[in-house]
């Protein structure tokens, strides 16, 4: 049962990644792209945890920890850049 649900969940997350990529390409302004990137990282973290479940290997979760930190750093530095840049 778990396996079937996992496959469905990964497909759902893949579809959401595609949707986010569409926004990333379309995004009229830079902040739009930054938020799309942020959500994309969150989706990657979710897929990493799901893969760690599929392969029954808990060490993938370390990658998720690091990635969540990097996502925050990226969002903050982009915010700073948006704040300081000149048109």
């Amino acid at each position, binding site marked *: *049962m*778990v396996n079937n*649900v*996992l496959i*469905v*969940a*990964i497909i*759902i*997350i893949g*579809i*959401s*990644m595609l*949707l*986010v990529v*569409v*926004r990333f390409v379309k995004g009229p*302004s830079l*902040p*739009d792209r*930054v*938020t*799309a990137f*942020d*959500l994309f990282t*969150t*989706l990657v*973290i*979710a897929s990493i*945890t*799901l893969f*760690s*479940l599929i392969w029954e290997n*808990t060490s993938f*979760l*370390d990658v*998720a*920890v690091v990635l*969540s*930190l990097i*996502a*925050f750093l990226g*969002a*903050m530095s*982009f*915010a*700073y850049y*948006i*704040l300081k*840049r000149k*048109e």
Partner: protein
Amino acid sequence: MINDIITTFLVSVGSIFMLIAAIGILRLPDFYLRMSAITKASTLGLGMVLLGVSIHFDQFGVFVKAFIIITFLLLTNPVGAHAIARAAYKQGVKFWGETIVDELELLSKKAENLEKEWQSNRSNFAVGEELIYTLMQLPASHGGSFRKSLDLAKQIQLVNTPVGNRLLGIVYSKMGHFNEAERYLKLASTECNFNQKAIFSLVDFYTENNLPNRALNVLEDAMQVHPQNIEFVFKAIYIAFDFGVSHKLGLACCDKIIAMGTDVSADYLLKAARYKRIFVERSIGKNY
């Protein structure tokens, strides 16, 4: 078995939340709406997926890792979203056409208009007072500053000392300088012979700083100077009621209003009677 059921539930609901977030970022009409949609939905979705996975493994180490990620997520996602939204607002990212209210812009426009009015006519203290309040509410990025309001209050003080002192006291109390605020507000209330506005600002300042006894003392003094002013009496009743101090004074005030009899309107009498009942019950020791 039960673990499997919980894991399936959490993982499926979590991934559906993430799908909702992705649909939100694609379909919503402007940047700020997208921002609000994705931060909430993605935080909840990822949290649920992580929790489900950690329940499946059922090991202490995995729980700790999942807990760390969830905690980081809860801490960092709102902060990051706020930072980006703030930067975008400052860069002038457009609102959706149907946004009804932009409070910051309204406030800064109000400040501009008041400033113009104040520059053209410097004898209208009401405008100056409003301008000071608006400037204190505005964030520093949009021209609001305590120093500016202080300067304005000092200008008013040069022309009209009591009003200026009261405004200075209010500005200092918003800045958090307790002693200066108290001094100026006291000066103002004595200088203008216990005027209602000045007394009320002093009393509000005391109640904000959780000093009901001092506020009641001020009100007692004011009542002795203006025995006919019902507002002072009611203010004292409210403070005694809210803070649960000095039932005696509250009772005395209620009696005073009831003793005025037909001089005051029926509403006031009814109110005073109600409060009197509460004060009596409290002073006997009955909890209300």
